[in-house]
């Protein structure tokens, strides 16, 4: 493994942090884990599973049966194992990020590796959920691994990780197309020099079929593990139907708390379909750089998916480090950072005021999620702008780039 001392040091520091005595409150924090990624519910699911109660027979456990099988046999969850597992998961993610960078930039070992790893391991949006042992760290790992394997042209591992990712977090289905395009294409930056590409549809179809194969195997395994099809309702359907309205930093929960009952199905459909609409335009526009398309869709997920935690926008922000070429073309990076700073202070504060202190009401926290949503949305728009703007290169004095 070609990792250097700096990487090891970073991981060791994270491991120390994971063993640090943290307040109990961490595990319950709405910003760090959602009902779909909560460690408390994972423990409960494993406990019920071991004691012969179907965890999917009620509204306690919303995570994949694969987690159940892994954490009830291979990796028992306890005080010692959990920090180690979650630190390792993050280390693998950071490693995948570094490898993706190497594949994209075409350079070998460089000084930038440690910087990228630090960007992942010490991004507060990412390491705080990991300290709360939220399973979003695991889906982030699958996310980055599938991109890494795809960037390196390793088709089967990439498709397997992708299938596992979609399996544990259904909304990640947005990434299927860009990752397949990445396998077919190349990871090098094509942003500055857009060229139409020719897609080998025959190969694409084979890859698509392989993905479906992996996905069906995982589905079948899950069905065998949990002994029925009930888990689909309790994992995928919950993500679509938003049965649990626990607050999170996203945009769905309060909208559907306040929604009139007879409009609920319509808006649920509209919100879910709305996510899918992004796939085609982003993939067509950035066809010459599928890695960038995957990055933009990660940003879409972090902004408007159903049960986001801080780790979803965190992954998007960390992935910007893969694309240093766009940085000069961002229009308002300062504004975006300030909004993020503002939101990251407001979110925990207003959550506390509403739910613990009792001096604020739900609108306080809702307002801060709106600010956070604006921050993520603006960052996303800026990245789309920069990714397209870079193709025009530097402008001369007295000239400006606008959209017609």
């Amino acid at each position, binding site marked *: 493994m070609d990792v250097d001392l700096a990487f090891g040091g970073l991981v060791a520091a994270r491991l120390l942090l994971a063993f640090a005595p943290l307040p109990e409150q961490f595990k*319950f924090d709405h910003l760090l884990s959602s009902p779909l990624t909560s460690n408390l519910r994972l423990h409960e699911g494993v406990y019920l599973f071991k004691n012969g109660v179907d965890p999917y027979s009620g509204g306690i456990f919303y995570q994949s049966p694969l987690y159940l099988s892994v954490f009830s046999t291979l990796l028992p969850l306890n005080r010692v194992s959990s920090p180690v597992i979650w630190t390792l998961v993050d280390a693998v993610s950071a490693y995948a990020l570094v490898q993706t960078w190497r594949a994209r930039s075409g350079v070998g070992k460089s000084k930038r590796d440690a910087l990228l790893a630090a960007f992942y391991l010490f991004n507060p949006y990412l390491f705080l959920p990991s300290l709360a042992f939220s399973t979003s760290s695991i889906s982030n790992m699958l996310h980055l691994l599938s991109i890494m394997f795809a960037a390196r042209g390793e088709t089967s591992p990439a498709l397997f990780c992708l299938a596992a990712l979609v399996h544990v977090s259904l909304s990640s289905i947005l990434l299927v197309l860009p990752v397949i395009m990445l396998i077919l294409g190349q990871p090098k930056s094509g942003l500055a020099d857009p060229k139409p590409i020719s897609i080998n549809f025959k190969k694409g179809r084979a890859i698509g079929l392989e993905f479906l194969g992996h996905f069906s195997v995982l589905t079948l395994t899950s069905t065998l593990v949990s002994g029925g099809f009930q888990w689909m309702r309790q994992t995928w359907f919950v993500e679509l139907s938003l*049965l*649990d309205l626990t607050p999170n930093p996203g945009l769905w929960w309060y909208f559907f708390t306040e929604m009139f009952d007879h409009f609920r199905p319509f808006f649920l459909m509209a919100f879910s379909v709305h996510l899918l609409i992004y796939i085609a335009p982003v993939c067509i526009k950035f066809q010459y750089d599928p890695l960038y398309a995957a990055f933009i869709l990660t940003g879409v997920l972090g902004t408007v998916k159903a049960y986001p935690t801080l780790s979803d926008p965190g992954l998007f922000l960390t992935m910007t480090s893969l694309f240093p070429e766009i940085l000069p073309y961002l229009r308002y990076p300062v504004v975006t950072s300030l909004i993020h700073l503002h939101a990251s202070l407001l979110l925990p504060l207003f959550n506390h005021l509403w739910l613990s202190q009792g001096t604020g009401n739900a609108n306080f926290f*809702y307002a801060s999620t709106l600010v956070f949503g604006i921050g993520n949305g603006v960052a996303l728009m800026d990245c789309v702008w920069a990714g397209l*703007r870079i193709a*025009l290169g530097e402008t001369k004095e007295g000239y400006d*780039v606008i959209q017609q």
Partner: protein
Amino acid sequence: MILTRVLCVLLAVWSVYADPRIESEHFEEDLVIRPLKDGRTSARFSFTTTLENKSPRNPELLGEDDDSQHYTLFPLTLGQILREYAITELHLSLNAGKWNYDTWGMPDEPGVATGGELWAWIGDGAPTSVDRRWQGLRNALAGLFCASLGVMDEQRTTSPSRTFRPEGSLPDWGHAHHLRHAFLPSEHVCTENLTPFYKLLPCKSFSGIATLLNPHKLFDADWHGMSVHVLWKEDVGIQVRLTFQAVLDPVRNSWNNKRDWSLKSLFDRQIAQSCPVSSASQIRVSIPKDQPHLFTPQPSRVDGSYAVFDVSNTADVEMRWHEEASFENPATGKQEPVSALSVRRTLESVNKYRGSLKVAVTNNGGDDMQTTYLETLPWFVQLYLHTLRIECNGTRRGDLLRGATFTPPIPHSRPTLYQSTLTIPARSTVYMTLDVTKAFLRYTEHPPDAQRGWDLPPAVFVPIRTDGEGWDGVERVYTPILLVDLATPDFSMPYNVIIMSSTLITFIFGSIFNLLTRKFIVVKMEGDEKSGDGEEREAGRTGGKGGEL
């Protein structure tokens, strides 16, 4: 032809008269009065109507027209409901107040859960499902007793068959019987429930001990509750037992702080005449041990620890502690509890979305004790069983809890059901702690007084007899109900939320599609002029050349 018809009719008439199982009806009434340790007096009225040699309706025949039912004493309105939904066994109780087991002991009627409690054993095999008939039963009883039993929907209904066994027998129709049980802790019993109760009695409140059911006094009591029990006993028939139970405080109402009572002082009424259709009508008074007391008139007989008075020749009963100048409440000092089991249950909230449920069960007896433990919680309070800690005498004792069964809640529909068997060592207390989280409700699911909180149903403990007598099931210990506050959304601005969230999503969506679909061009900036003669470059969608136009 005519001859055969006549023969048929004759045969039918003969078969009816020859049937040895002639149906007949019985009515008995009974009042039990127990002086309690804290000076209060418990009174339990019981009115039993028996429909002899009759069995509940077979659910398989629900699709067909029912045989016509003729009752003389049996309450018709209740009978119709039981036939309509083919209910085999039914228990309804509506209580107000908290039964204090430690000083009052076990109640004469075990169902003393605060608020409403309804449970029924319903046979399967009918064209309509058990749940559908349970729903019909709830609504019919809600209409009959003027209580909001209709809201005991699937969000409150469980099937805790380990705790609530049938008290009578279940007919063998070749189909299983199912239990449906629901608590309604926020329901209150009042006069509007008592009036329909009178109407079910054959003598209403005009004669017999029902005369004493004076709402002014009963609803002034420290604890009061009414219940209806319908059960079938194979060798007896269908039995309807209507009961009213109250804990009255003669000390509070006496001018010289004495606990002496009479029917007149307790109920402000006397029995003018006995109920003519009643086959047995008696007042039983529990005789306190080692306390000098006097009865006026003298009891007609003494049956064990009860002095029995016959209502037909007794208008009033009076009991006096003639050697006691004034009553000193021993319960105010430190005092051994009367009941074998003492239970405390609290919900400690860390904040509006999590807390922990703490249950402390004390065995006051000298022998180890086994009880079943039932916890039914609405779906919005979620238990985390892996966090269960059981402590006894300062050590962790996971082994004390066995045979746990758990039905997880379903959001917006099914409640949690948790049943287990708990062993409590002699003269010690078992502490159980469970983490809970509180769900977030849709704004339409909150009641109008959302800030008040939600009442949680009581936990139930049923001591299991270990002396070889097997299941008893009649002694039940209900914990007091709990109040839980849930986080509330803002109720004033659903439109604003919908508008603002939609705006933000549209803004992001619109901006991104704007960026993705419109052409990028380079324009010359010359003051305010935006002329087309500037240099324009384009980066097209699929490989704009970046060249000059």
